[in-house]
């Protein structure tokens, strides 16, 4: 365990809390039919996004999953823009065209959520290849779930990145399930570190519930990548506390398993480590909640994409 300054600890705690409160609000807004379609919550997994992002530089790139609200917020995409996107508003990060699974932000080099599982991996390798060709010492951080490991893109991507020694950080968020399928029902090799290492790139397993461990592991992986040592793989072991989406009866896991993991809530763990009292926690919470309130007000006040714009952005210019 590395030394944890109070300042860093509080920053990490705030980030995790931002994601938690944002998503709790999203769940309520979904019930109220303000947010429609599909909603996949990151609750329980906040330590990963909150731990990884501070170790990246503003010029690094991030490729995320469809469960990406936490990635976007921790990367610095404005909460207002994320909430407005959830609503489908024109003021949203992606003009409200995609909603929850499609948050993009060029300003923070956030290359999107992606509702195609595994779809982001090859293009993350391409961003890194471009950096290598352009002699940039930037890193591309690529998030994906344990489920994506079964897709062909995972294998092609790890091979290419390792073969060409590209500056990619593969971040596998192993929450033990892909929808209703437990890892051992989907993988012949359940040791994902061994699987990644078979492509000849250094790989390590990290406690994804410990935000400090996540940060430290990311820091050393990123340093090695920046030194030109090629790709790194981190398996971040975590658990989603909520259902896969808003339509999931969770018949594939037991209540006691969920309770065991909830006992390792990353926010509670860090709070205990920081020995943060009720008053200080309440004050932090109030600040975070007011940011969430403001994002809801922003989204509510937003507008819908004008129908005349429906066919724009398909091509650079509209074909005749």
């Amino acid at each position, binding site marked *: 365990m590395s030394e944890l300054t109070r300042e860093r600890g509080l920053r990490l705690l705030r980030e995790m809390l931002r994601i938690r409160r944002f998503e709790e609000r999203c769940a309520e807004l979904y019930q109220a039919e303000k947010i429609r379609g599909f909603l996949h919550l990151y609750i329980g997994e906040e330590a990963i996004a909150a731990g990884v992002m501070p170790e990246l530089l503003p010029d690094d790139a991030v490729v995320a999953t469809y469960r990406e609200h936490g990635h976007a917020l921790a990367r610095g995409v404005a909460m207002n823009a994320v909430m407005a996107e959830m609503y489908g508003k024109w003021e949203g990060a992606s003009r*409200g065209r*995609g909603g929850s699974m499609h948050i993009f932000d060029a300003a923070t080099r956030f290359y999107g959520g992606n509702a*195609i599982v595994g779809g982001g991996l090859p293009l993350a390798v391409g961003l890194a290849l471009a950096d290598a060709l352009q002699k940039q010492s930037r890193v591309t951080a690529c998030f994906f779930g344990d489920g994506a490991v079964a897709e062909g893109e995972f294998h092609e991507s790890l091979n290419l990145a390792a073969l060409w020694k590209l500056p990619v950080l593969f971040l596998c968020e192993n929450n033990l399930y*892909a929808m209703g399928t437990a890892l051992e029902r989907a993988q012949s090799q359940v040791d994902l570190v061994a699987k990644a290492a078979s492509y000849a790139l250094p790989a390590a397993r990290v406690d994804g519930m410990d935000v400090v461990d996540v940060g430290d592991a990311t820091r050393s992986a990123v340093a090695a990548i920046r030194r030109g040592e090629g790709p790194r793989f981190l398996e971040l072991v975590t658990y989603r506390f909520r259902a896969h989406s808003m339509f999931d009866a969770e018949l594939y896991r037991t209540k006691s398993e969920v309770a065991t993991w909830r006992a390792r809530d990353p926010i509670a763990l860090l709070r205990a480590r920081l020995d943060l009292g009720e008053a200080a926690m309440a004050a932090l919470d109030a600040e975070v909640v007011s940011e969430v309130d403001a994002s809801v007000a922003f989204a509510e006040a937003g507008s819908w994409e004008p129908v005349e714009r*429906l066919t724009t952005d398909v091509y650079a210019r509209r074909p005749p």
Partner: protein
Amino acid sequence: MAQMNMVQAINDALRLEMKRDDRVVVLGEDVGKVGGVFRVTAGLYDEFGEERVIDTPLSEGGIIGTAIGMALYGLVPVPEIQFADFIFPAYDQIVSELAKYRYRSGGEYPCKMVIRTPVGGGIRGGHYHSQSPEAQFIHVAGLKVVCPSNAADAKGLLLAAIRDPDPVLFFEPKRVYRAAKGEVPEGDYTVPLGQAKVVRPGKDVTIVTWGAMVYEALDAANKASVEGVECEIVDLRTLWPLDIDSVVGSVKKTGRLVVVHEAPRSCGLGGEIVALVNEKAFLHLEAPPVRVTGFDTPFPYTLEMEYLPLAHRILPAVLATAKY
């Protein structure tokens, strides 16, 4: 007869055929223990066991590729792709292997299987839970493509598809999975592939459509009727091979054609239907054929109800065609 929705009717067809033919194997993501995200395969795992209902990893190329192998061997796989939008990792296997195996082997190796997958918009699913890619498969010679609009047809067409000697893509309009409720014949029941059905007779305008848009066409037709225009609605049911005779027969009667589909307009099935009608019934046409379709864009989250060719867009097209 029994009252069923489309989910139940498809489930009934799968159960029936799995009982009748022990070569039938269902496979896909969460189709077994969970029973499918839309519950279409619910109960099959308990009834037939894990060798007949196989839970797979997230691996669409693998699902379709292994299904092809099983089909070549002589089993009858019925893989599920969770949403049609996720079929593209398997597109290579479908296009390069499944569609062409019979032809490439000089007719020696048939590849008999049915790929089931939910299709279409209307559930606010956004870009990747809403698309209608049927034309992308029709354009590949060697595949049959089906899309039922109601529970009885879903059962009858699925049983026919599973018994068909060719590979069939079976698109299930998810918007009406539960809403399309109706009388479904009990026991064995097939609807032949390649036969459209007139679901509303009329003398003034022919509307050709399929899947969830049949209901929008009916809605528009009822409104047009108030204005004195009677629509004949042809529900294609099988998109390929196309029952062009039924379409042409109706157009010869009405002289006017409106095709409605959710998929983008350009190079959609509507374009092919219009071309065939022009070739076969040109002199019967009283007005230029019209397409009411999705737009040539990705599928939008917010503007979904503008994108879809719903009744409020079909009606003006019908009235304008009638007045032309």
